[in-house]
C-alpha cells in the first residue's frame, strides 16, 4: 500500500535548530577545555604528585582516635544541637511572614511588599552561614548567640523560598470555595491555604534543621561556639587523634539528624 498524500519523513527539529544545538554542545566542550587549561596553569605539580604521600601521613597521624577526648566534647555537642535548633526556630519565625508576603497569591501588595520580601529571601540566601557568623561575631562578640542568629538569618532565605513556592502551588479550587462562603482574607488563609501548605512547611523545617546541624558544627571555626571551637583548638595544636574524634562525632550527629528528619517527613506526608 502506498500513501503518497501524506509525507513519510518527519523530523522533530528543523535542520537549523539541529545545527544550533550541535554548535551549543561544541561550545561547551571548548569552554571545558579552556577552563581545564586555566585551572592547570597555576598548579604546582610537585605538590600534586606529593599529595598521596601527604594524605597517608596525616591519615597515619589521625589513627588511632583519642577516645578519652570524647567526654570533653559532650557540652560543645549539646551547644551545637541547641544552636541548630534555636537558629532554625528563629529562621522559621522570621521566614513564615516573609513567605506569605512573597507568594503571588497571598501577598497584600504585589508592587511593594512582594519585591521587598523576595529581596530579603535573596539577601539571606546569598550569604553563607559562615560569613553571617563571621559578621555577627564581629558585631555581637563570640559565643553561641552569634551562631544562633547566623543560623537563623541564613535559614530565612531557604525556608522562605521553599515555603513561598509551596504557597503559590496550592490548589485554587478550595480557595475559591472558601472565598465563596463570604470568608475574610485571613479566614481564607487559615482554612484553605494553611492546611494545604502544612506538610510542605514541616518537611522544609525539618530539612533545614538537618542542614543547620551540619552547619552549626563548623561555625565555631569563626568563634561562634560549639563543636567547631574544639575542632579549631585541636587543629591549632596539630592534635590529629582529637580531630578524628570530633569528625566522627559530627558524622554520628548528622546521621542521627538525617534519620530523625526522614522519619518526621514520612510521618507527615
Amino acid at each position, binding site marked *: 500500500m502506498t500513501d503518497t498524500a501524506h509525507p513519510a519523513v518527519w523530523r522533530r527539529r528543523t535542520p537549523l535548530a539541529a545545527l544550533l544545538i550541535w554548535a551549543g554542545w561544541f561550545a561547551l566542550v571548548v569552554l571545558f577545555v579552556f577552563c581545564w587549561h586555566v585551572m592547570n596553569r597555576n598548579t604546582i605539580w610537585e605538590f600534586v604528585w606529593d599529595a598521596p604521600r601527604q594524605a597517608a601521613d596525616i591519615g597515619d597521624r589521625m589513627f588511632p582516635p583519642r577516645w578519652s577526648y570524647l567526654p570533653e566534647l559532650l557540652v560543645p555537642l549539646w551547644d551545637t544541637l541547641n544552636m541548630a535548633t534555636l537558629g532554625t526556630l528563629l529562621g522559621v519565625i522570621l521566614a513564615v511572614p516573609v513567605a506569605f508576603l512573597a507568594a503571588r497569591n497571598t501577598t497584600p501588595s504585589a508592587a511593594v511588599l512582594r519585591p521587598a520580601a523576595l529581596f530579603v529571601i535573596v539577601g539571606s540566601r546569598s550569604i553563607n552561614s559562615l560569613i553571617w557568623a563571621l559578621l555577627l561575631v564581629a558585631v555581637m562578640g563570640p559565643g553561641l548567640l552569634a551562631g544562633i542568629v547566623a543560623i537563623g538569618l541564613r535559614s530565612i532565605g531557604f525556608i522562605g523560598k521553599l515555603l513561598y513556592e509551596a504557597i503559590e502551588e496550592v490548589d485554587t*479550587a*478550595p480557595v475559591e*470555595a472558601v*472565598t465563596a462562603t*463570604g*470568608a475574610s482574607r485571613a479566614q481564607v488563609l*487559615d482554612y*484553605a491555604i494553611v492546611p*494545604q501548605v502544612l506538610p510542605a512547611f514541616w518537611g522544609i523545617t525539618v530539612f533545614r534543621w538537618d542542614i543547620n546541624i551540619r552547619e552549626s558544627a563548623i561555625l565555631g571555626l569563626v568563634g561562634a561556639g560549639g563543636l567547631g571551637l574544639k575542632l579549631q583548638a585541636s587543629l591549632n595544636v596539630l592534635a590529629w587523634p582529637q580531630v578524628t574524634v570530633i569528625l566522627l562525632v559530627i558524622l554520628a550527629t548528622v546521621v542521627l539528624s538525617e534519620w530523625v528528619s526522614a522519619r518526621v517527613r514520612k510521618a507527615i506526608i
Partner: protein
Amino acid sequence: MLEISHLTKTYKTGDKALSDVSFTVPQGQVLGLIGPSGAGKSTLIRCINRLVEPTAGSITLSGEPITGLGAADLRRMRRRIGMIFQEYALVERLTVMENVLSGRLGYVGFWTSLTRRFGPDDVRRAYRLLDRVGLMDHADKRADALSGGQRQRVGIARALAQEPELLLVDEPTASLDPKTSRQIMRLLTEICAEAGLPAIVNIHDVPLAQQFVARIIGLRAGRVVFDGTPDQLTHEALTAIYGAEDWEAMRKGNEEDHEAERDAALRMAAIV
C-alpha cells in the same frame, strides 16, 4: 429571587464570555444551565457571587444589588449564596466537620474560626446537615478519606451551612459515575424543594438535566439561545445550543463515555 439583566463579561484577553444575558430565577426554582464547553456557563455562575467580576450589567438577589458592592458588603452578600463545585473543592486535609463549618466563616469572627470554637447553633446545624446528607458517622474523618460521592455531599452540606437564599452549582456530577450522579442530583433537588431554595445548576449531561430540573437555559457562545421546560428541549433546540449532531446516538453513547472517562482517570491516578 435572582434577577440578571444585560450581564456581559469580557476577559482581559478580549474573549467575550457572556454577552447581554438576562433572566430571572423565581423562588424555589431549580434551573439547569446547559451548553458546550466554553459557552460561558462557569463564567455566568461565578459572576453571580463575583468570583469573576462582571464587565457590565446588573445582578440583584431579593431586590438587593450584587454588582457594585464594596468588599465588606460583598462578603455579607456571598454568605447568602451557597456554591457547590465540580471537583468538590473541599479542603482535603481538614476534617469533614471543619469543611462543613467553613460554610459559617462569613458569620463568625476570625478568632472563633481560628480556634475552631464555633457556637452551639453552628455546630448543631452542621451535625443536622451531615445527618441530612447521610454522613453522620464521618464527621471526624479527613475529607480525603471519603469517596467522590461522599465528598460532594460534604460540599452540599458546606453550602447549606451558610443558610443560603440561592445555590450556585457548578458541574456537580462531572467527576462522578452515572449512579452517584443521579443520587447527587436527586439530593440537590430534594433539598431545594424542602427549603424552597432557588438553584442554578451548570450541567454537561443533558439527559440528567432533563430528568431533574424544572427549567433549562441553553447558552451558546455567551448568549441565551434556549429558555424553557425540559419537554421543550427538542432536537432543533439542542442543535441551536450545541450545533448539528446525532442526538439519539449521543444519548446512548453518553453512559459509555462516563465509564470510559472514569476508567482512564483511575488508571492515571494509579500511574501518578
